[in-house]
């Protein structure tokens, strides 16, 4: 099949005109027909290729354990998930913790707090903490990607939990890692950031703790989250690195406050290209997972 010249020509053509995903989409469709689904293969696929948008939510749900590997259990488990979601929502309404005018992201936060047994007393709700803000940022981004509120809540909750459980210990090391790769790619920029004192004040929290929620527009963000959900937090370092590299000329001419201000609010036009280059750079330094797909 690989020798079929017509097919190769077609792939090359698609590649040129931007339909690079045609072959990938077919191999993903084959993986999704497996019963039970092979989680490892799905992760590898998602590490290597961008997920076609029509399958993204389904693959995320499987990788995050919201849906089990056996497709014939999906209806049963999906029903359990819906009831769990509805019951929690109903209880919060009964307690008047939320009402119809509560912003949905805050609803998701209260639901998550109830499930994690850290819901504050209604009479003395404290101001939001940093962790709450991380959760809310991720919620706001997820809400732009996922239409159905039930799916949205489950994806936020499981993404947030999985990310912190799996990578919580690695997060403090990411700034050092960024510094390391920057010294490889652009030592002059690193020196500039060091000498102005900006390096210590890069927006590490929105970049790493929030996985770029609030920094990148959702269309670019979801391609980064494909990698995070399928098992890599290193990708975050390369997205940060590529942001620095893409704006190095401007950054070289800025002092510390200007750098910080610029990076906290980067232009939203080039982000697709930044993510593409970041993924290439990540594959270059960390290798491409080579399981048979």
């Amino acid at each position, binding site marked *: 099949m690989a020798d079929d010249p017509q097919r190769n020509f077609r792939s090359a053509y698609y590649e040129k005109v931007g339909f690079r995903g045609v072959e990938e989409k077919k191999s993903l469709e084959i993986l999704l027909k497996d019963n039970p689904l092979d989680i490892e293969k799905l992760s590898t696929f998602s590490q290597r290729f961008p997920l076609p948008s029509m399958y993204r939510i389904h693959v995320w749900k499987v990788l995050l354990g919201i849906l*089990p590997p056996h497709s014939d*259990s999906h209806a049963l488990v999906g029903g*359990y998930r819906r*009831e*769990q979601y509805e*019951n929690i929502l109903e209880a919060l309404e009964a307690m008047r913790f939320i009402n119809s005018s509560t912003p949905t992201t805050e609803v998701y936060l209260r639901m998550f707090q109830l499930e994690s*047994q850290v819901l504050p007393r209604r009479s003395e709700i404290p101001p939001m903490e940093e962790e709450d803000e991380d959760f809310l940022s991720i919620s706001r981004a997820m809400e732009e990607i996922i239409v159905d509120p039930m799916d949205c809540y489950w994806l936020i909750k499981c993404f947030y939990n999985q990310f912190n459980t799996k990578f919580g210990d690695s997060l403090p090391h990411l700034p050092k890692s960024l510094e390391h790769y920057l010294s490889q790619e652009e030592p002059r920029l690193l020196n500039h950031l060091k000498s102005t004192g900006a390096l210590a004040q890069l927006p590490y929290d929105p970049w790493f703790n929030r996985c770029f929620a609030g920094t990148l527009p959702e269309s670019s963000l979801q391609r980064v989250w494909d990698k995070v959900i399928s098992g890599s937090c290193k990708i975050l370092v390369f997205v940060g690195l590529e942001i620095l590299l893409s704006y190095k000329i401007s950054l070289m001419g800025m002092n510390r406050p200007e750098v910080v201000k610029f990076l906290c609010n980067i232009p939203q036009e080039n982000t697709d290209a930044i993510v593409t280059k970041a993924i290439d750079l990540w594959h270059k330094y960390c290798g491409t997972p080579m399981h048979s797909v």
Partner: protein
Amino acid sequence: FLEDVKCQAKSELQACESRYQAQLRVTQTLQTELLQLYSRVEMESCNNKLDNQPLCPPQ
């Protein structure tokens, strides 16, 4: 194949268990809220009695 069946059953049970655990937390939260509300109601009705005493002596 047997492993497969066990595995499927396990994931279904886990999802069912998660729904049950969530419901358990809902119950606990509701109970706490009710408790607080009851003590508030009692305190208020007690305060009201005290407030009203000099103004409205029992008939």
